[in-house]
C-alpha cells in the first residue's frame, strides 16, 4: 500500500560537541547549492557535551517536505550511532565510521580520520567523503569550504583545504560500493538554506520589525540569535531581558512607541507572558510572539518537539479579546506568516502569534529567495497632524479600530491604559463605557477574519480519505496522503497554517465531501480537532496523535492509519 519513495537519507550521529551539526550544515549547503531539495530533522539532548545527537538529511532531486529516518548513508562519529541507528539502514546503505569503531554487521567504510584530518578537521574530512559518496561536484565542495573559512585566518583555510584534498584522494581510492544521488541541475534562481527559526527572524525583518526582546529558551533561542546577527545591519534594537515577563513588557513598550517588536519563547517562557498578552490586547498595542513548542508539561523534554500548546496559546491571558495564530507548515511559511503576523498585529492593534515547534525550528530546507510582500508600512497612522484635538487613543469607531499615534511624534498626547478606559485613555469606572469598549475590542475579530488565510487543500477532490492537520505536520501528512493514494483510493490533505480565527465556510464543504476524515496532530489530546468541533460541531473521531517527542513522519502516519482503518 505504501509507495516506495525516491529520496535518500543521510544520518550523522555522534556526541554533542563532536561537530556533527557543522558536518550536517555544510553537507546541506553542498546539497542545496547542487540543486537538491532537503528536509532536516535534528535530534539532540538537553546537555552540552556527550550523550547522543543526530542530524538527519533527507534529500531528493524532486521536492520533498517530510522527514524520513530510514537511512542510506550513516556517518557515525561514535559507536552509539551504530547501535541507535543501525536498524534504520536501508538494504543498500553504507555506514561511514572511524577505523577504530565497530560497524557491527553493516556494510561499512572505515575511515582513518586521524590520519586524514588530524585533531581538528574531522568535519571537513567527513563532509568531503560524504560529498564524494553522494556524487556531489568536487569543486563545489571545495568552494563551500573556501566560502566558509575565508573570513578566518588564511592558514586555517589552507589546512582545511589540505584535509579536503587528502580525504578526497582517500575516498576515491577506497571507492566503496554506494549508489550516489541522481544528478540534479542547480538551474533556476539560487536558493537559500534556512531552518524554520531563521526564517521567522527574517520574516520579522522583512515585515519591518524594529525591536526584539527575549529570554533564552530552547528551541526558540535561535530565532533571536538570528535576529540579533542582523540587527546592526538593519538598525534594530534588541535586548536580552531579565525574564520573560520583562521581555513581553519591553516589546509592548517599544511597540507602543512605534518600533514593531518580536518576542520569541517556548511554552514555559510563554506561560510567563500571559499577563502581558492581556495587556497588549487591553492597551491595543501590536505584539508578535513566536512560540516554538517543545513537549511539556513544565520543563518536559526541552530539546524535542510537540504541538502541545495550541489551546494554551489560543486562550492565554485573562479577559476576552481577539487574536490571530499562525502555524507555519514549512520554512517558507515561517517567513511569510511571520510577516503576515506583523501586518495583522499592526492593523488590528493587538497580539498575533507564530506557533512553531522544535522540529520545524531546526529543520533546514532549500527555499527560493523570498518575495517580500510589500506590506503597507506598519507605521501608517504614525503621523496624524490633522488628528482632532484632544487626540483620543481609543476613539470609538464602527470597526473598532482607532487611529494610532506614537508618543513624542506630534503635539498630541498618547494615553494608554490597562484599566478599562475612556476614549481618551484614562481610567474609568463608567460601566456603560466599559460595555462599549468590550464591544470595540471584540469587533476586531471581523478584521482578523477578513484577512485570514484559509486552509490549503491538496490531493484528490471528494477524497475517500481526508487528513486534517496544522503547523509543522504539513509535509509528513501530505506525503502520507500521497503514498496512501491508489487508483481506487482518493486521498487528500487539509492543512491549516492559520489556526485562529477560523471561518468554517472555508473548509466545511471540503470536510463534508470526504469519506473518512482523520486528524493528525503532534500531541496527545487532539487539540485542533477539539477546536474544529467547537467551531463547527463536527466530531473528528479518528485521530492520529504523536507525543513521544519526535516529529510526525509519513511512515508513522501510515502505520497509525492502518490501525485506525482496521478498527473501522
Amino acid at each position, binding site marked *: 500500500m505504501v509507495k516506495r519513495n525516491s529520496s535518500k537519507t543521510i544520518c550523522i550521529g555522534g556526541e554533542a560537541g563532536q561537530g556533527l551539526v557543522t558536518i550536517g550544515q555544510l553537507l546541506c549547503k553542498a546539497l542545496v547549492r547542487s540543486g537538491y531539495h532537503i528536509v532536516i530533522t535534528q535530534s539532540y539532548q538537553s546537555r552540552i557535551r556527550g550523550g547522543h545527537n543526530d542530524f538527519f538529511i533527507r534529500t531528493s532531486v524532486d521536492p520533498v517536505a517530510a522527514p524520513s529516518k530510514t537511512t542510506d548513508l550513516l556517518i557515525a562519529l561514535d559507536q552509539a550511532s551504530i547501535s541507535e541507528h543501525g536498524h534504520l539502514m536501508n538494504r543498500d546503505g553504507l555506514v561511514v565510521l572511524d577505523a577504530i569503531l565497530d560497524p557491527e554487521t553493516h556494510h561499512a567504510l572505515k575511515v582513518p580520520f586521524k590520519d586524514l584530518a588530524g585533531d581538528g578537521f574531522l568535519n571537513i574530512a567527513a563532509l568531503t567523503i560524504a560529498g564524494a559518496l553522494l556524487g556531489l561536484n568536487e569543486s563545489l565542495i571545495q568552494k563551500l569550504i573556501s566560502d566558509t573559512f575565508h573570513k578566518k585566518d588564511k592558514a586555517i583555510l589552507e589546512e582545511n583545504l589540505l584535509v579536503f584534498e587528502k580525504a578526497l584522494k582517500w575516498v576515491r581510492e577506497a571507492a566503496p560500493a554506494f549508489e550516489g544521488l541522481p544528478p540534479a541541475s542547480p538551474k533556476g534562481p539560487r536558493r537559500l*538554506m534556512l531552518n524554520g527559526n531563521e526564517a521567522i527572524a527574517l520574516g520579522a525583518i522583512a515585515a519591518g520589525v*524594529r525591536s526584539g526582546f527575549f529570554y533564552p529558551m530552547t528551541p526558540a533561542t535561535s530565532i533571536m540569535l538570528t535576529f540579533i546577527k542582523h540587527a546592526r545591519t538593519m538598525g534594530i*534594537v534588541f535586548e536580552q531581558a531579565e525574564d520573560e515577563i520583562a521581555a513581553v*513588557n519591553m516589546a509592548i513598550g517599544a*511597540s507602543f*512607541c512605534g518600533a514593531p517588536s518580536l518576542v520569541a519563547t517556548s511554552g514555559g517562557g510563554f506561560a510567563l507572558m500571559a499577563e*502581558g498578552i492581556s495587556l497588549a490586547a487591553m492597551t491595543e498595542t501590536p505584539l508578535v510572539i513566536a512560540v516554538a513548542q517543545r513537549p511539556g508539561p513544565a520543563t518536559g523534554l526541552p530539546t524535542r518537539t510537540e504541538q502541545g500548546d495550541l489551546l494554551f496559546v489560543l486562550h492565554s491571558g485573562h479577559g476576552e479579546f481577539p487574536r490571530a495564530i499562525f502555524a507555519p507548515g514549512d520554512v517558507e511559511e515561517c517567513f511569510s506568516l511571520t510577516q503576515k503576523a506583523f501586518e495583522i498585529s499592526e492593523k488590528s492593534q493587538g497580539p498575533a502569534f507564530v506557533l512553531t515547534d522544535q522540529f520545524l525550528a531546526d529543520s533546514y530546507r532549500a527555499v527560493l529567495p523570498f518575495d517580500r510582500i510589500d506590506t503597507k508600512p506598519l507605521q501608517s497612522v504614525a503621523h496624524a497632524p490633522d488628528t482632532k484635538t484632544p487626540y483620543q487613543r481609543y476613539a470609538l469607531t464602527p470597526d473598532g479600530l482607532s487611529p494610532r499615534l506614537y508618543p*513624542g511624534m506630534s503635539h498630541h*498626547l498618547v494615553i494608554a491604559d490597562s484599566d478599562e478606559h475612556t476614549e481618551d485613555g484614562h481610567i474609568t469606572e463608567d460601566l456603560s463605557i466599559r460595555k462599549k469598549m468590550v464591544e470595540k475590542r471584540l469587533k476586531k475579530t471581523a478584521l482578523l477574519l477578513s484577512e485570514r488565510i484559509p486552509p490549503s487543500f491538496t490531493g484528490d477532490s471528494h477524497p475517500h480519505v481526508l487528513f486534517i492537520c496544522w503547523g509543522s505536520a504539513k509535509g509528513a501528512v501530505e506525503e502520507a496522503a500521497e503514498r496512501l493514494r491508489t487508483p481506487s483510493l482518493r486521498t487528500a490533505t487539509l492543512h491549516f497554517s492559520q489556526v485562529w480565527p477560523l471561518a468554517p465556510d472555508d473548509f466545511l464543504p471540503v470536510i463534508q465531501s470526504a469519506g473518512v476524515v482523520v486528524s493528525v496532530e503532534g500531541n496527545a489530546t487532539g487539540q485542533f480537532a477539539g477546536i474544529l468541533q467547537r467551531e463547527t460541531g463536527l466530531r473528528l473521531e479518528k485521530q492520529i496523535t504523536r507525543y513521544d517527542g519526535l516529529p510526525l513522519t509519513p511512515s508513522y502516519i501510515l502505520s497509525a492509519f492502518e490501525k485506525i482503518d482496521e478498527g473501522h
Partner: protein
Amino acid sequence: MSTLKDYGSFETAWCPGCGNFSILKAVKQALVQCNLAPHDVLFVSGIGQAAKAPHYLHANVFNGLHGRSLPVATGAKLANPHLTVIAESGDGCNYGEGGNHFLAAIRRNIDITLLVHDNRVYGLTKGQASPTSPEGFVSKAQPDGNPSLPFNPVAVATVMQAGFVARGFAGEMAHLTDLICQAIAHKGFSLVDILQPCVSFNRLNTFSWYQEHCRKLENSYDPTNQRGALDVAMMDENRLPIGVIYRNKRPSFKEKAEGSSSERAFGLQPFNQALFEEVLAHYY
C-alpha cells in the same frame, strides 16, 4: 517654555491628606523646571494608588501592569531615545512584584527615571505589608507582624552602582522637585525613592513622623563617593537622609550599545531593501 498650566489639573481618586498630592505637584514642577513639553515626556506606571499619578497630568502615558513599569519604560526608551521616559509607581509595584526589573534596570543603566512613591504599604489593596514596611508592621495579612526585614532601595541601588540614587520626602516639595529634576537630567538610570505618608493604612510613618526623622544631606556631602554613600544609604530610621545619596558617570546603555540601540531603531524609516538583500546573502 513650558508652564505648570501645560500640565493641567485633574480630579484624583486619592484620599484627602495623602502624600501623593504633593508628589504629583513636585513632578509637575520638575517638568516645568526641566522645561519639558508634555508631548516629549512619557510616563509609564504600574498598578496601585501611586501608579494612578500619571493620569493626573498632561503627558504621554502608558499605565501598564502591576510591577511592570520598568520593562515597558525600557522598551519605550529603546524605541524612541528622544522621549523623556519616567517610570512612576509604588513601593509594592517596584520592589515587590517588580523587584527583578529593579535589579535589571540598575545593571542595564538605560536612561530612564524611576519615581517610587514609597508609602511602605500596599495602598490600593488595603494595607498589607509591602517590601518597605517596617519589621513587625501589623495588618490583616500580617496579624503577627511583618516577619521580613524592610527592603532598603537606596542602599541596594548604591551597592549596585546605579547611576543616580536619591531619596526624597513628599513633605519637602521644593527639595523633592529639585531631586526629580536632577534625576531626569542624569543620563542613565536614576532612582528617586520618595517617602510618602499614607493616611489610610500607614499609621506609623505619618507626615509628622517623617518630619521628625528626615534630615537633608548637607551641602558638603559628596555623593560621588560610593563608600560614603553606602554609609548614608544604610543609616537607620532615626536619621533618614534625604537628597542625592549617590551618583556616578557610568556610561548609559545607549552609549555602550550604540551599534544596536542607535536612533536607527526608531520605527519610522522606510524599509531598506538593499540591506535586506545583504542579510539574505548569508543564507546562499
